[in-house]
Each structure stands twice: as structure tokens, then as C-alpha cells.
């Protein structure tokens, strides 16, 4: 047994690939069989990740257990930011022009409003330092913007976990709510789909929500949502963090 743990520990990153691969597979299975593809597999997988972190110890979650130390490398700041930057390949400035002024406004406003609404609620629920408020506000944008911002401003692991949870709940909420309220917000054309993507920012939630509403609208929403996520990674740890510091 000790031998096995030694080998897994020495090859931490490789074992982490295996562990995450199995988690992804199980999540897709649960998403398909249990929720009939209604909840995005990404949201299930991240919830799964948060769930197993509970069995670890303190600050490092599951990585505190020797065999799982590689999870900290795979999920560390370097690989995380590297893979997030690569998602920008799904966006293009020539495409975004088609969304027009309203599209650009939605991309900025989606971030700013989620950030400040999230931050103000967190303030009234007992968080008082600028780093935590900024990270929670960023989590209200997406589960990517939250941890990227948290790491950049130096927030605690606990607050970063809350920001991921906010982003995951948002993704699931957007997925479920979209088909229900699509008619009320006239979400039946590419123009509104682009504004919807920009306002809600969460690419996984937006894609799954639009797929349940009208498959043809998915690329429009996903494009502005990707832009919005990038905008969040840009604004939250910089200008918005600066503004929060002026108030606190």
C-alpha cells in the first residue's frame, strides 16, 4: 500500500490527470442519466471537485492527502491561467462588431453589475475586507473570474472556494432559468442572445441555457459570454478592486 502511495505521490501531476479524467467522466454520466443533460456537465464536475475537497484538510483541500498532491499543481494558478487564456480563441473582434453597441455595453455592464451586487450582499453578510469583497463580487461574474481575481489580489482559500461556489450556482441557475423566462425577455433572436451572453458572462450556463431554448442561438451567446469572462478577468482584479479599496 505504501508503495502505491509513494508512486502516486512521485507522479502527482499524472495521477491528477487520471483523477480529474474520472471525475469528468462520472459528471458527464450523471449529467446525462440523472439530469437528462439539463445541468451542464462542467457545473456538475466542479461541484464534484468542491465536494471531494471537503475530505481533504484545511487550506489545501484534497491536495493535503499525499497521493493527491498533484491536484494542487494541475489546479494551481499557472496552469489555470494558461488554460483560461486559451479560451479566448473562441472570441473574435470582427465577430463582436455584429453585436453592436448594445453587445459591448452588455459585456461591460454584465461584469460591473454582478460584481457590485455580489460585493454589496457580501458586505452586509459580514465580509469587510477589500480582498474578500472583490473576490466574492468576481465570483458573481463566473466561476473563472472569481478564483483568477482571488489569486491576483491574494484572497484566502476559503473565500476563493465561496467565489467558485457562487459561479457554479450561477451557471446552474442560468441554465434552468433561461428556457423558463426566454419568452419574457424576448430571447428568440441572435441580437438578444448576444446581449444575454454578455450580461450573464458564464459561458457554460449560457451555452446550456440557450441549447435548451433554441440550439441556433448558442454560438451568439457563447461568443459574448467568452468576451465577458475575459473582461471580468481584466476589470475585477484591477479597476474594480481599486474602487472597492477606496470604499473600504
Amino acid at each position: 500500500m505504501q508503495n502505491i502511495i509513494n508512486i502516486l505521490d512521485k507522479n502527482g501531476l499524472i495521477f491528477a490527470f487520471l483523477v480529474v479524467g474520472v471525475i469528468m467522466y462520472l459528471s458527464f454520466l450523471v449529467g446525462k442519466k440523472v439530469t437528462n443533460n439539463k445541468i451542464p456537465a462542467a457545473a456538475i464536475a466542479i461541484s464534484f471537485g468542491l465536494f471531494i475537497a471537503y475530505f481533504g484538510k484545511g487550506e489545501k483541500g484534497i491536495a493535503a492527502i499525499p497521493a493527491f498532491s498533484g491536484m494542487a499543481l494541475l489546479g494551481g494558478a499557472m496552469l489555470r491561467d494558461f488554460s483560461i487564456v486559451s479560451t479566448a480563441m473562441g472570441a473574435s473582434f470582427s465577430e463582436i462588431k455584429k453585436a453592436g453597441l448594445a453587445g459591448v455595453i452588455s459585456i461591460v455592464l454584465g461584469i460591473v453589475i454582478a460584481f457590485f451586487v455580489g460585493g454589496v450582499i457580501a458586505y452586509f453578510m459580514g465580509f469587510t475586507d477589500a480582498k474578500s469583497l472583490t473576490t466574492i463580487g468576481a465570483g458573481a461574474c463566473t466561476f473563472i473570474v472569481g478564483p483568477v481575481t482571488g489569486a491576483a489580489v491574494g484572497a484566502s482559500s476559503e473565500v476563493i472556494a465561496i467565489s467558485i461556489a457562487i459561479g457554479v450556482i450561477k451557471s446552474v441557475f442560468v441554465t434552468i432559468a433561461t428556457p423558463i423566462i426566454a419568452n419574457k425577455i424576448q430571447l428568440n433572436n441572435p441580437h438578444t442572445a448576444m446581449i444575454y451572453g454578455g450580461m450573464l458572462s458564464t459561458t457554460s450556463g449560457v451555452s446550456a441555457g440557450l441549447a435548451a431554448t433554441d440550439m441556433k442561438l448558442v454560438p451568439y451567446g457563447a461568443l459574448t459570454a467568452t468576451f465577458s469572462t475575459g473582461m471580468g478577468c481584466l476589470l475585477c482584479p484591477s479597476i474594480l478592486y481599486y474602487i472597492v479599496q477606496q470604499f473600504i
Partner: protein
Amino acid sequence: MKIYGVAILAACYLVGQFIGDWFGRLFDMSGNLGGVGFAMILLILLNDYLNKKKLLVPETEQGILFWSSMYIPVIVAMSATQNVKAALIGGWVALIVAIIATSVCFLLIPLIAKINRIKK
């Protein structure tokens, strides 16, 4: 070669980190200010430019797309290494922030959708 794509991505990432770090010093704040966001903008600009010049071959693109397909698994690994026990104490915060902040954004969609229509 796929490594060209990975190298392009690495270049955008590093330049973004430099810009973020530089901004951090400029405003005298700890940490990296928007480095990931700058890197994303750089990659979008470079992607647009290379596509226009027809310099981006699919093989090169694959090197970048591999990493973008890895981002959810990486986020899963990151979630698994957070201090979830402590975060659970603030569990209500997550639920309330997510629902209210998202609802406000939902409500504003019809208003913003009107902007272009008024201009027309």
C-alpha cells in the same frame, strides 16, 4: 506543429503577466492586475491578425485548442484543492449572492436589447 500554437499561447500569457505586474506596481497594489484579461485580449488580436494573413494553420491552432479543452478539468482540480470546509460556514452567502446578482442581470437584458432598436 502543435508546439507553435502552445508557444503563441505561452507568449500571450507571459506578456499579459508582465503587463498585469506592471500595472500592479504602477498603482502600488499587491498582486497581478488583470494579467489574464490582457493575455486574452492579446490572443484574440493575434488570432484575428493571423487569420487575416492566413498564417494560422489548423495544426498550430490545435495546440491552443487543446489547452482550451483542458480548462474545465483544470478548474475541477482547482476546486478540489480549496478550503471547502471553512467555506461551508459561509454557504448561504454563495447561494444568495448567486441568485440575486444573476437575477438583476437577467432583468436588465430586455432594457439593453432596446438600445440598438432605438438607434435604428
